[in-house]
């Protein structure tokens, strides 16, 4: 898949933002007034910024509102509802904390659930796609959720929790890579089944339909070298998990915490780039590519 910056930023930052909102919703940390405002501002900036970034990849962003209509069947539509629901509830909840120094506990818990539901629906947009076996795995939502919660913990200043959650998220991330590398083969979809010609012999893509490029090739076919990918995986796991944990284990300072967060974000961005760049859409088979 084409690693479009808009979707990489969207999934990374909205994941972090909603993760933080979830923590705030359960009252961790317990903040009110301007401190709360600062936390909420960061969470909204990330969540809403991420959502806005996602509209950049729309062909017709001015019609984005229509995306709310198909919640019965579409995960993208459900994501929209969850996001709006989470942002609304958490907005009310946050207003209580900031302006009234009051915590409406139930509202917070509902908001936290909707925040995580938002991350889950986002993950389901990818998970549901049988066309991309690397994404079409039960573990994919856990990856999104674990990263969101761990990143949220980092943002929420929950050092102990963050360390544990980062380890879990890192483990899940590593597992998705191992499983993902076998996914296309495991899916049973080959150029043979794609063309139906498999029973006649070995099939090889000859001339492509057009000598030039097209939307499908630009959107779905992205080739990165195996060695290059392995290197990036290593970098991403170091930045996303290892370095933040090391920094968190050092005596606490705000500078180190920010550094840990920055490292984590850079790591997630790298992993997310790989999430797209390494995802093989089966349509690539028709072009003799993966």
């Amino acid at each position, binding site marked *: 898949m084409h690693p479009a910056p808009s979707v990489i930023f969207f999934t990374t930052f909205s994941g972090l933002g909603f993760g933080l909102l979830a923590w705030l919703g359960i009252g961790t940390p317990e903040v009110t007034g301007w401190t709360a405002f600062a936390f909420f501002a960061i969470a909204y900036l990330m969540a809403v910024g991420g959502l806005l970034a996602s509209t950049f990849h729309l062909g017709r962003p001015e019609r984005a509102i229509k995306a709310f209509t198909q919640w019965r069947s579409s995960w993208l539509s459900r994501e929209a509802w969850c996001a709006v629901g989470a942002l609304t509830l958490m907005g009310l909840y946050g207003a209580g904390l900031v302006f009234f120094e009051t915590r409406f506990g139930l509202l917070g818990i509902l908001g936290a659930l909707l925040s995580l539901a938002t991350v889950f629906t986002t993950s389901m947009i990818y998970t549901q796609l049988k066309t991309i076996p690397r994404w079409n795995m039960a573990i994919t939502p856990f990856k999104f959720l674990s990263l969101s919660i761990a990143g949220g913990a980092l943002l929420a200043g929950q050092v102990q929790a963050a360390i544990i959650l980062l380890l879990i998220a890192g483990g899940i991330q590593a597992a998705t890579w191992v499983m993902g590398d076998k996914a296309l083969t495991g899916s049973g979809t080959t150029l043979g089944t794609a063309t139906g010609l498999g029973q006649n012999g070995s099939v*090889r893509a*000859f*001339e492509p*339909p*057009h*000598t*030039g490029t097209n939307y499908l090739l630009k959107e779905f076919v992205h080739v990165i070298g195996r060695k290059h990918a392995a290197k990036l995986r290593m970098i991403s796991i170091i930045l996303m998990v290892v370095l933040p944990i090391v920094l968190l284990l050092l005596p606490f300072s705000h500078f180190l915490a920010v550094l840990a967060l920055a490292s984590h974000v850079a790591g997630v961005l790298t992993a997310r780039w790989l999430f797209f760049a390494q995802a093989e859409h089966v349509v690539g088979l028709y072009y003799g590519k993966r």
Partner: protein
Amino acid sequence: MTFQQPKIDTSPHVSDEVRKTTCYMCACRCGINVHMKGGKVAYIEGNRDHPVNQGVLCAKGSAGIMQVNAPSRLRKPLKRVGERGAGEFEEIEWEEALQIAADWLEPVRNTNPEKLAFFTGRDQSQSFTSFWAQAFGTPNYAAHGGFCSVNMAAAGIYTMGGAFWEFGQPDWDHTKLFMLFGVAEDHDSNPIKMGIGKIKKRGARVIGVNPIRSGYNAVADDWVGITPGTDGLFILSMVHCLMKAGKIDLDYLARYTNAPVLVINSPGAADHGLLMRDSHGKELVIDRKTQKLTPFDQPGVMPDLAATYEKDGKTHRPVFHQMAEMYLDEQYAPEAVADRCGISAGRIRAIAAEIARVAFDEAFELDHPWTDFRGDKHDKMIGRPVSFHSMRGISAHANGFQTCRALHTLQIILGTVEVPGGFRFKPPYPKPATAHPKPHVGMNPGAPLNGPHLGFTHGPEDLALKEDGSPARIDKAFTWENPMSSHGLMHMVISNAYAGDPYKIDVLFMYMANMSWNSSMNTRGVIDMLTDKDENGDYVIPKIIYSDAYSSEMVAYSDLILPDTTYLERHDCISLLDRPICEADAAADAIRWPVIEPDRDVKGFQSMLCELGAKMNLPGFVNEDGSQKYADYGDYIVNHERRPGIGPLAGFRGENGDQAGRGAVNPKQLDRYIENGGFFVEHIPAGSNYYKPWNMAYQDWAVKIGLFDKPMPYLFSLYVEPLRKFQLAAEGHGERQPPDHLRDRIKSTMSPLPIWYSTEEENHAAEFPVTALTQRPMAMYHSWGSQNAWLRQLHGHNPLYLPTRLMRENDLTDGDWAKVTSPHGEITVPVMEMAALNENTVWTWNAIGKRKGAWALEEDAPEATRGFLLNHLIHELLPPKGDGLRWSNSDPITGQAAWFDLKVRIEKAKPPEESQPGFAPIKSPVGKGPKSLTWKVGK
């Protein structure tokens, strides 16, 4: 929950009007429905009523809309102001343009008309352009057949009075085995696709013989990946097998061919090897019943294939005896040819056996009584459901003429020509070579030529030689170098004119011929010839006039550009006088008419010639009072008469428009064509539509509609006597004698019975062991497609396809680059693997590569950066033999350019930035096209 969905309009307005005309996106001539909205072309589809395409249409045809809006269209006459090749032009008015042309041409006409060479790349108005050239008086006229198809046309017409290409077709309704050899997918392409679809649906077998398994060969049931240039050997081996097994149609051979005609046996004499004739020139046979010598065509005669004739102590044997002697020889046994052909002996036998099985075991009869030219009545028509088709693949070799002849021989011994299930001619064929004109070169200053330029020679006396024996024509057509070059040799014109061999010219006038690029062999050399100057600083080829609709590579190398229209803006006639749209069951012709008016200051080429002809007072183009005779080409099409009652169009003749073929001029003829969908069809009556060369009902019908003036039944010439006449001259007989250096070649190649010879040695195959071929993609015709925004997405660049073996041997993978070297030059190009390819052949798509700046493309267009031409590797001359002579790279009989004889070697190369050789950009006289297109006229 009820399911809701938007309501959509499923019956939207389609178009304001449908205008029916003829496609010109390739040479196929399909009928098209041009849907108009608001006066603009909205959509093009095939015309269901049209005899050629019956509604279907290929990619090119549907993309016509992008051809008509192409940014590369020329807009106004241009006068060169910079050096040739720089692309510096000044736009001028038509009046000035035509005055310049007349000022250049009139002195030539009045002093030495041969100083004009007038050649047209496209040939769909050949009867008109040759009429113009005759009126002008130059002997130097032809279309592009010489590098395209002449081997096939000449072999077919000399052998059986009709050829493959689009001049005949398999009997798609009855054939059960269809074998095609090296077919060009740009002629008769929709009918062939329709036919293949039809017979495959019926479960008939298709055998494709082609080094490359693409297109039609990809859908063939059996693919024979033959070694290029050996088709003739493969065919003669099948002839060997079939004759040896007696699987030949003796009745057919005896009645309809010259197999039983006696051959004079008088070694050393001037008539040795000629056919025995009576005092009226009629071929003589022995009648099987009376065992007497008799002219072949007498009532009741059954010619004897076996009988010999004794006279003066000599035994004169029929042609068939010679054939038996020749083809039963073990040199044609499958085992003897297998290695050279790259086909196992078993496979050759299997194919020959299958042909025999279908031709004879699956023979059938149609209930059509008919009468032959001897008056013999037949109550049935015997069908032999084996058909063959072939085109450029066997034509564009230096042994192509004899290979095509071999294929016709195979067809004829099986009795599968003009019979149900076999191969059938389309009117005006069948028409024997003797019914065609002979070449004419008789010229006088200020006067028309003494007859048509092109035709068929029947012996040395017909050659186009001057009194001193030197060639009369600039292309050396109809000379000892290529005595039967019926279509001329367009590919030699620039080279010969530059060399002054046989003479220099003053004006080169060309139409739609991209000679400085893909229409020439040796592109770089031709560019140099066009731009080279003599010691006085004048161009060696002094004046070049060029007409084209588009900004092709040739524009920059011309001095005066006369811009043509696109095909939807013009009149044309697809006439029975040259290349009509007939079917085997019908005579048919068609028109083009301006379905839109040009939005530029351009004139249809033929209309422009009407004007220029009148300006120069050419006979036929002015009235008695000196005024212009034909206002435009449309006027000519309606009012010109070639013979009384016979004009360019056969339909709707006579004052009431109710006469077919013959009839007075009908001023409303074009309107009637337009009403009828742009074409006219006259069906051949049932019972007349097979056995046409010998079927008196057909002959009478053909006379009635004016195809010829009296019935002319004839025998198929398995033995082509004119070839023997040239051999006799080479043996020293007769007054006209070939130069000594050509004697041996004439003797060895101009065999009156088909032979095969290798062309490898003269192409240095020992050093260059791989054959390099080109094909045209089905979706792209010539160079015209690259300016088409839709088609150029399909074929925007062209890799060189290499067989798996050559990929492995050279350590190549897809996308690598290779240096390809021929005896003449080298190119460096991207490669791609193809497994379904003869293991010693490489190939690419033709004419995808473009010169930077041409066709209104951006200079970094893939056509110019990755696309390439094989033309750079091919020379119009053979590699020098050390004798100082210029040996043309052509068939020694017809002069057909032998571009499929190209031999190369391959080696891996470091990827260059762009395909090599690179050429400097030329300045576009029309600017560049828009960035993006959202084309919708009915918004």
